[in-house]
Each structure stands twice: as C-alpha cells, then as structure tokens.
C-alpha cells in the first residue's frame, strides 16, 4: 500500500479489526519499523495514542503534566508556558495538586488529552482515544482537532466511530487485511465500508437463520419492512420534523391468535436508537392464516440526521418467544436533520421542544433551608 498526506489534510483510517490501522500508526510514530517499505515524515509528529499513558498514580496532576509533556517531547519551558491552558482545558483546576489516583477516569482522560493536544505538532496521530469520555468532552476534543487542522496540522485518525471520523476528517483510507480497499473523500469511503459491514452482518444472520428454519420453528414470516414518509410515500429522505411510518408485512402459515410486535430503529453504526412494542403501547394484534401488514406511525420521526434502518420481530402472546427466526429489516433510510450540516447536531433524537425564558425569577425555583 502507499499513500500521501499533504499539509493540513486530515485522513481517517477505517476498516475491521486486524486490518492494520494501528500498525500504520505505530510505524508512523516510529514505535516500530516496517518489515518492508519506507515512510517519509516531514515535520514534528505527535501521537494521541493512549491518553494518560505514563501518568503515575501517586503523583499529582501538576507533576504528571510535566512528566507526560516531556514524554510527548515538550521541553519543561514549553510546558510551563502552556500550563494554564492545559489546566483550563482539562477542567481540573481544583484538583491539580491531588494525586492522580484519586481522579475519576473522566478527569484522567481530560488531563491526558489536554497535555497531548497542547503540543500543536505538524502531524498528529489520533488512535481511538476519543472513544472514552462523555459526549461533551468528545465535542470539545473535536473542536480542538478542528482548530489544529485550521492551523495547518495534518491529522491521521483511527476510530471505529464512523460519526467521529466523518466529523474530523476529509479523506479516508479503507483498509482490509493490510491492503487499501478504497481511498478517497471520507463520505464515499465510509459509505462503502458501511455497505460491507451491513453485508457481513446479513451473511452472519443467514447462516444463523438457515439453522433455525430447519427446525421448522417458523410459524410466520416477515416478508417486508418499509419505512415511508407519511406525507410523501415515495420519498427516500425523511425530514426529522415530519411524521414517518414503519410498515411490517407478514405471512402467517397458520392462525396464531394474539401476538406482539416489536420494532427497532438502528443507526448505521449499530446503535439501537429506539424500541417500540405493541405490548408497551397496549395495542392488540390478532393474526389469522395469511398475509397482513402492521403499521407504526412516528409523529414526528425526531431522529437526528443520519442513516438508519428499521428492524421488526413478531413475538408470542407472552411477549418473550420470537415467532420468527428471521427479523424483518427495512432498507437503509436517510434522515435529514433541521441543522444545516450534520456536524451541527449530536445525540440521537430531536424532541419537540418549547423554550421559555423568565428573566425575573422572584425567588421561584430556589430552595431555602432554615
């Protein structure tokens, strides 16, 4: 394989485990040597590979900032100059003289990122480090990474979180068993990778299913799952603030009486966004021999912009045994959020909101203890 990265570009390495993403980073970081071939690196390189690696639990935050900073290649003077900035970013001012062993894991990670990212190197390697920490911290780190890119830092980013990848990078390299599968604009590459992931998942399911149906367990088959826009039945892109409908088509091989149906909406990275069950909604479904359709309306859809699919199951009267060995799946569908670009949104759904503002509190909402 071979690839180039120019100044101020950000490249994502994606691919399944064992594809060689981390090995590339290790070679670039000079931690290990390639068995064959060459790398050429121009400029100061720094690696955000494991946050807080090298922190000594018995030493204070202050001591560890200096220790970690020098490991990452800063001189003592440079750390002194950036000390306040590091403490600010990590939000641990009050605990700066407390041993790190008393920090929460979140605090440790924040401090680690603050030290590592204050370096402003010309090339920055980021390996899966943002998987830790809460959402607001991730946002903060992303902003920081964007700042660095703006200042001309080139970034190589490894993550399984395709959302972060898309938010942080403009090009991507899709690796499979040590080879380049695709290299290009981040969106295209991620789409291909997601397709592959989906296919792989589907294959796994099929293997699993063929075993199931041999036992003749299937009393019912889900023939199709559609997601449609309630207003425009032909639309393939769904606005977040418009109603949508999930339609579950089935074919029952014998009369089943009372059954339960559950449906999920699953984001392209596998996150289950919501679960809807007839049992919870006290909706009764009676199935006779033959075909039919169960519809579920979401008013409005509320999901943030992204790619999703819906999955449905039929369950028996007790809502515990699946009647189908194979779940029904819809095609991928795209949700368009209300924000201009999807980077402006985070989270999973946009609830219908109503803001109010009362500037004169008059003591309401306060608590007094006497």
């Amino acid at each position, binding site marked *: 394989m071979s690839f180039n990265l120019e100044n101020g570009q950000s490249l994502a390495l994606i691919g399944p485990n064992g594809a060689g993403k981390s090995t590339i980073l*290790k070679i670039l*970081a*000079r*931690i*290990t*040597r390639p068995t064959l071939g060459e790398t050429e690196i121009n400029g100061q390189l720094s*690696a955000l*590979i*494991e946050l807080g*690696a*090298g922190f*000594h639990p*018995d*030493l204070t935050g202050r*001591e560890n900032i*200096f*220790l970690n*900073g*020098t*490991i*990452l*290649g*800063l*001189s*003592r003077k440079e750390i002194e100059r950036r000390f306040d900035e590091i403490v600010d970013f990590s939000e641990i001012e009050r605990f700066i003289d407390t*041993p790190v062993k008393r920090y929460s894991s979140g605090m440790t990670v924040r401090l680690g990122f603050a030290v590592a990212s204050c370096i402003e190197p010309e090339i920055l390697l980021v390996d899966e480090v943002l998987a830790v920490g809460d959402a607001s911290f991730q946002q903060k780190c992303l902003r920081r990474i964007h700042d660095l890119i703006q200042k001309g830092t080139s970034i190589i980013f490894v993550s399984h979180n395709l959302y972060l990848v898309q938010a942080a990078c403009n090009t991507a390299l899709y690796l499979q068993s040590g080879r380049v599968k695709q290299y290009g604009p981040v969106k295209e590459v991620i789409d291909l990778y997601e397709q592959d992931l989906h296919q792989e998942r589907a294959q796994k399911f099929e293997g699993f299913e063929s075993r199931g149906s041999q036992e003749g367990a299937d009393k019912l088959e889900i023939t199709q799952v559609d997601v449609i826009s309630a207003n425009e039945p032909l639309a393939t892109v769904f606005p977040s603030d418009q109603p949508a409908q999930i339609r579950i088509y089935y074919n029952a091989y014998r009369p089943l009486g009372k059954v339960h149906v559950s449906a999920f909406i699953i984001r392209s990275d596998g996150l289950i966004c919501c679960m809807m069950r007839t049992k919870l909604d006290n909706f009764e479904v009676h199935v006779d021999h033959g075909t039919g359709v169960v519809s579920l309306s979401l008013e409005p859809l509320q999901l943030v912009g992204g790619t999703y699919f819906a999955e449905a199951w039929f369950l028996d009267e007790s809502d515990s045994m699946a009647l189908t060995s194979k779940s029904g799946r819809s095609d991928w569908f795209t949700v368009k959020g209300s924000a201009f670009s999807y980077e402006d949104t985070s989270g999973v759904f946009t609830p219908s909101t109503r803001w109010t503002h009362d500037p004169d509190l008059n003591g309401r909402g306060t608590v007094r203890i006497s």
Partner: protein
Amino acid sequence: MIADVKSAIQSKDLLLAWTSRNIRARYQQSALGWLWAVIQPAAQTVIFTFIFTMFVPIDTGDVPYGVFSYVAMVPWAFLASSLNDMSGSIVANMSLVTKIYFRREALPIASMLARFMDFGIAAALLVPLLLYFQIPIYPAGLLFIPVILAIQVMLILGLGLATAAANVFYRDVQSLLALGIQLWFYASPIIYPVTMVPEKLRPFYFLNPMAGILEAYRDVLLNGRLPGLYLLPSMVVSFIVFIVGYWFFKRVEYLFADIV
C-alpha cells in the same frame, strides 16, 4: 552515535522529569522516605562489622572495620540498586513503550539517576564518620573521586542498558541479574580488604571492574593515597561494557514495541 548522544542531551528534560518521578514515587507513601538511602547500606555495614570484629576478626589496619566497609558498601549499593531498577525499567513501562515514541534509554538512565540521589545521601554520612574516627583528609585524593565515579557510572550504564533491553525478551534476565549481583558482592572487596586475596590471583581479581573501583575509593578516602595502576583494568573493562551495552540497547530497541 555522536548524533545519538546529542539527541540524548536534548531530551534532558524528559530524563529529569522521569528521574524526579522515580524519586517521588518511591518516597510518596513512605514514612522514613530518603532515610532509607542510608539505612540500607548502614544496616549491612553494622551486621558485617559485628561479624568481622567479634567472631572472625579481619585486619583493616588503622581504619575501624565499620568505616572500612561502609566506604565500599555505599558505592556498591549504588551499583546494585541501580542495576536492579534499570533492568526492570523498560518492562515496567511497557504500556508507554508500545504506544508513544520517546528516547527509550531515558527509562533506565533515569532509574540510575534516581539511585544516584540515594548514593549522594548515603555518601554524605561519610563526612561525620571520617571526622569522628579522625581519619586524615587527603585533598588530592578527593579530586580523584569524580574520575572513579565516572568509571563506575559507565559500568552501571553499560550493564543496566543491556539488561533492561534483554529483560524485554527474557524475564529470566532480571532474576539472573539478582543472583549475579549477590555473587559479585563476595567477589568484590567490600567486606574484606584486597590484601586478603592471594598475591598470585590479584591480576585476575582486578579484572572485576568493581574491585578496582572500590579499592580506589578506599585509597583516596581512607588510605591517603592516589589509586594505583590497578584502576586501569577497571577503566578499560567499564568502558567496553558501556559501549557494548549501549550498542546492544540501540540495536534492539525498535523491537520493544512488537513484543508484548
């Protein structure tokens, strides 16, 4: 290699930070703290003084046995504790080594520097000791101490770097080293004077670099004379050990991250 040394000097901040980490971490939850630097060699000296004055008297001339053995015990403790810490220094920080690039020799060298502080503290006790026993100070000899120390540091660095690197591949190295240090203790003139070694064996005896180094410390501090030619083999052996140890370390260091 010159470029290596230059870049090593540039990473002195890393070395200092790591040294202070080692020292702080060692004394962090310790009640006696730095006093351990003295207690360890002093306790050993007391034990051997007890044995070799009460049960098996050894002739140490005008110098009391306690002072005689403490002068050698302190530099010996520096060597033994340094090697012990250095040999484990890379393995103990494997999580760092496999994830971040920095000059790897900083780890073992900082381990030695941290022990150097102990050495300084334990050596400071010599001043009241020499004054109390009214041992005459020999100024020209004191000037020689940095030379002897430099030889000893070369020896420690060479062995420490080599064992630190080898220990990554085979953990036996650390155990083997501990055993070796025990035997080496008796093969060096710490608890007995060189004069007890048969004349015919002495040329071989001084091939042990610690023999010359310890004897030299005694000559300048206790006997009021400059080290003799016996220091030459120590110098040569230590230098070779340093070059080979450092070369070996640099040669295999890129493999560290691949071995987990």
